[in-house]
């Protein structure tokens, strides 16, 4: 396939993200990468579980967490996953502007999630003096949840970069895999959050 066919395809196939060899490679490679990320988070979860009662005299999970806030955050992130699915749906139908709209919604939801997370951390630090350094629980909590938050931030910057870069030229076979892979990343972040919600917050509150 010539470069011209890739950048200005005469017609878009149904799965533009896998129409070129580069796209296929990216798609598969990213799945592998997510496999590695899974081990990364599994290790962080393991560390957290080992240290979840190590409060060193400070506040424990039951005292700290408020499920209302976390519930709102969960809803925001879950919804953002759904909106990114819409975006990919429109990508497959070659409807660039609708894809951009839904990606925009995704990004907005993602940023509001991060806002809540920052508030949450601020709250723990100032109301409870529960910090990264105050106990092993603190170290484990901020590391696990912070790693996730860092992933969210990176994902947002990535999607925004892609949107800005391609705003003027629309979809082609070169950028379709990029959008697709970014949305995969976004789903992954979402799945990790579901586990954080369960293992850290729910089990921290009741378990």
């Amino acid at each position, binding site marked *: 396939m010539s470069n011209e066919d890739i950048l200005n395809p005469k017609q878009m196939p149904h799965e533009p993200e896998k129409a070129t060899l580069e796209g296929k490679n990216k798609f598969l490679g990213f799945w592998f990468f997510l496999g590695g990320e899974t*081990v990364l988070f599994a290790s962080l979860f393991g560390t957290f579980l080992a240290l979840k009662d190590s409060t060193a005299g400070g506040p424990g999970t039951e005292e700290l967490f408020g499920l209302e806030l976390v519930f709102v955050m969960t809803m925001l992130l879950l919804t953002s996953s759904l909106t990114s699915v819409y975006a990919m749906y429109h990508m497959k139908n070659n409807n660039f502007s609708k894809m951009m709209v839904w990606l925009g919604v995704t990004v907005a939801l993602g940023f509001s999630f991060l806002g809540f997370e920052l508030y949450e951390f601020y709250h723990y630090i100032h109301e409870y003096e529960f910090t990264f350094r105050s106990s092993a629980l*603190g170290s484990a909590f901020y590391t696990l949840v912070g790693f996730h938050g860092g992933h969210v931030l990176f994902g947002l910057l990535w999607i925004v970069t892609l949107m800005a870069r391609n705003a003027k030229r629309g979809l082609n076979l070169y950028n379709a895999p990029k959008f697709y892979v970014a949305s995969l990343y976004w789903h992954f972040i979402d799945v990790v959050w579901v586990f954080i919600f369960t293992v850290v917050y729910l089990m921290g509150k009741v378990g």
Partner: protein
Amino acid sequence: MSTAVAQKKGFGAFIWDYLTTVDHKKIAHLYLVAGGLFFLMGGLEAMIIRIQLMKPDNEFISAGLYNEMITMHGTTMIFLAAMPLLFALMNAVVPLQIGARDVAFPFLNSLGFWLFFFGGLILNFSWFMGGAPDAGWTAYAPLSTTSPGHGVDFYVMGLQISGAGTLIGGINFLVTIVNMRAPGMSYMRMPLFTWTVFVTSTLILFAFPALTVGLFLMMFDRMFGSVFFDVAAGGNVIIWEHLFWIFGHPEVYILILPVFGVFSEVFSTFSRKRLFGYSAMVFATVLIGFLGFMVWAHHMFTTGMGPVANSIFAVTTMAIAVPTGIKIFNWLFTMWGGTIQMTTAMLWSVAFIPTFTIGGMTGVMLAAAAADYQYHDTYFVVAHFHYVIVGGVVFGIFAALHYWWPKMFGKVLNEKLGKWTFWPFFIGFHLTFFIQHFLGLMGMPRRYWKFLEGQGLDTGNLISTIGAFFMALGVIIFLWNVIYTAFKEPKASADPFDGRTLEWSIPSPPPFYNFKQTPLVRGLDALWIEKSEGKKAMTPAEPLGDIHMPYGSILPFVMSLGLFIAGFGFIYQVDNPVWLSLVFIGMGITLGAMFVRSVKDDLGYHIHKEDLEKGDGQL
């Protein structure tokens, strides 16, 4: 652009070419040179250790320096020598063996190299910046978290950065092998080396993130005041041991599996027989990879996990000996009845079999948890892992280098010097390490700076040191062979060893696009099939057409340089927050380069059919 052309353009262009290359064959050269240099560093450290232990109560180096020596020796050899040397082979050979023009991610391939390289540099800069890490290559907490000075910080940052490179390299090879095989090359027609690289890459993918997390925790504890390993604040030092070995045990199989592949190729080529039990070999490789994740706690038998956990891990560990045994027998049966040629590559491979078997046997001894209370942390363990790592991985790398040197550099290494490399090294190896089994059983602990007179350890240690000098001699002869071959040996043909697999169907060294036409694979040992039917070359799977190639890029180098700079910032901000500026500058460089990569289209270019028809496409 071929190397020769670049050289004509001058030294600057030559350097620039290698800094920006995304050609897997040149990246192989980079890995080989960098890994080779680190191997020499590690070897030097080993010699210093052996000189210190040459006689009782020796004062050759101080206790502190000794700790730095053993730490840097282990860390360097595993992460900066063995791994990259294997990556050199993987890069040089795998795309050729599967009939591909390139790897799946040429850009990431280059990034992987530069990350490894700059990580290695950080680690070794420690020597000049107040002292190297000194908590052992295993860096157990709290020894590591409380080690004064910055040594261990260099360990953390260096391994974190080079580990990222390794992970990227692993993903690249996974996708390359899944997506880029030539038509007809089904999984069960892949050469065994490609198979082992595939399984090794899977292990890298699932093992390295555990190390990443472990290193992050240690970094946070040492540099940002967290308390993961601080028992006073509720921390738990065993977490490090688990994370390290969840990575660490698969790591030893990451190292050994590719050379299992090498030996399979070498045995079959130089016995002029197809590999005995190919499918059993594939199965055993996959099984070893799988079991490799179930055994990590055999390094922790004495940690106090309790009898149940110890028993389970003892059994899973012993189980690995079964697929390994399958392999040993298949290699023997490959040679059985074959027309054996004792080339240097073959010599290393034949020597590997008894050597590695001894290592496997001591492994099973160590796996007996109750007995391990006696062996643990003695020279018995040191002897075990050197039998498997030197007798396996290093022998394998030497075999591979002698075998694939013509494919990488266009000349066959001098055979006579090759044998002169082998014998001192082989004899020296057994002199050095065989006696260490007994030193260990007599109670000599590992990692001790000195031993005392009159405990029956003197002679054994002296023998061990003498052996080390023989090994060094072997390495020096090898280096001489490299130089000698470059100047004195004639150019090699495409297929100097009457090979069986696709890499021997194209010139030595291959043109930068590897295959002018993608070959059609009709079975295992694809080239051999064609040869046995009287054909001289592979049947092409496609008509001659334009070839798509990627552009080179300096960005991988820049991204890695950024992390290198940031690494120093992280290390020194503990002393003075001003150093945080380096973190911002470095991360800015890296993220900036990533941004450029994201927004700048890079679709590559095409070599046109007409040019290919003309001068073999030598642009």
